[in-house]
């Protein structure tokens, strides 16, 4: 694929130049033993998130051969571009497996995307609300996983300045629950994401 012309400035989009966190073999085969890898390279230039980012994003992926994982890998560059203000920490496969061994109830739910709200963490620490997590691995089909990922990205972007993220999340969940109820009552197909 030809290189996209370089454009200066923080708004540039270089998805053609982004080194996806997967090997070329993964791209061809769709599956790899090498999951998303942490890249221990300091952020430089205009890639650097602001010092006081609102969120910290963690990705835990032990490497299940799942539709959710493939969707995450295929869209990782876009997610990163959309969330460029916030650092994304990707646990290596080994670290993710260790994590899962320590927290066994999470096995099979990964890839997990955990978001720490630094504003809430600064106020109350981890004792109260301090973020949310999306258990992408619970979504079994590529369509569901993609919708989940899109909803996640949309929520983060639209609530970056939220004064009360917890209230926003709970309101969203209530709304989703209500929409589901209405759809059931109307004999519509279940909302894809929670079906």
């Amino acid at each position, binding site marked *: 694929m030809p290189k996209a012309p370089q454009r200066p400035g923080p708004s540039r989009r*270089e998805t053609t*130049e*982004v*080194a996806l*966190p997967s090997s070329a073999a993964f791209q061809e085969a769709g599956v790899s033993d090498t999951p998303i890898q*942490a*890249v*221990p*390279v*300091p*952020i*430089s230039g205009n*890639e650097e*998130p602001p010092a006081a980012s609102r969120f*910290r994003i*963690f990705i835990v992926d032990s490497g299940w051969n799942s539709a959710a994982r493939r969707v995450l890998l295929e869209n990782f560059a876009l997610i*990163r571009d959309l969330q460029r203000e916030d*650092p*994304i*920490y*990707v*646990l290596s496969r080994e*670290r993710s497996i260790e*994590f899962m061994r*320590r*927290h066994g109830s999470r096995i099979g739910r990964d890839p997990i995307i*955990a978001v*720490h709200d630094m504003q809430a*963490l600064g106020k109350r*620490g*981890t*004792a*109260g*609300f*301090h*973020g*949310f*997590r*999306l*258990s992408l691995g*619970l*979504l079994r089909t590529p369509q569901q996983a993609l919708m*989940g990922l899109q909803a996640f990205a949309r929520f983060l972007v639209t609530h970056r300045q939220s004064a009360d993220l*917890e209230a926003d*999340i*709970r309101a969203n*969940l209530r709304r*989703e*629950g209500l929409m*589901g*109820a209405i759809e*059931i*009552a109307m004999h519509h197909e*279940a*909302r894809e*994401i*929670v079906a």
Partner: protein
Amino acid sequence: MDRFGEIVSVVLGALAVAYLAYEIDRRKRKLRDLFHVLGSEEADISAELADMVESGELQPYTRRARA
């Protein structure tokens, strides 16, 4: 016969309402499972991740230009 029909209607109606309640509850649980709010129950896990960042074990993901 009318009485029997009434009973069947009531039973079917009750079943429909029960199913609706069950389905709504199932979806709510599934949605909360999928999109979970981090609170004190996850304090240990969150602290573990935060410690990895603070200690430098985890570095922010960054792009690498393709060779």
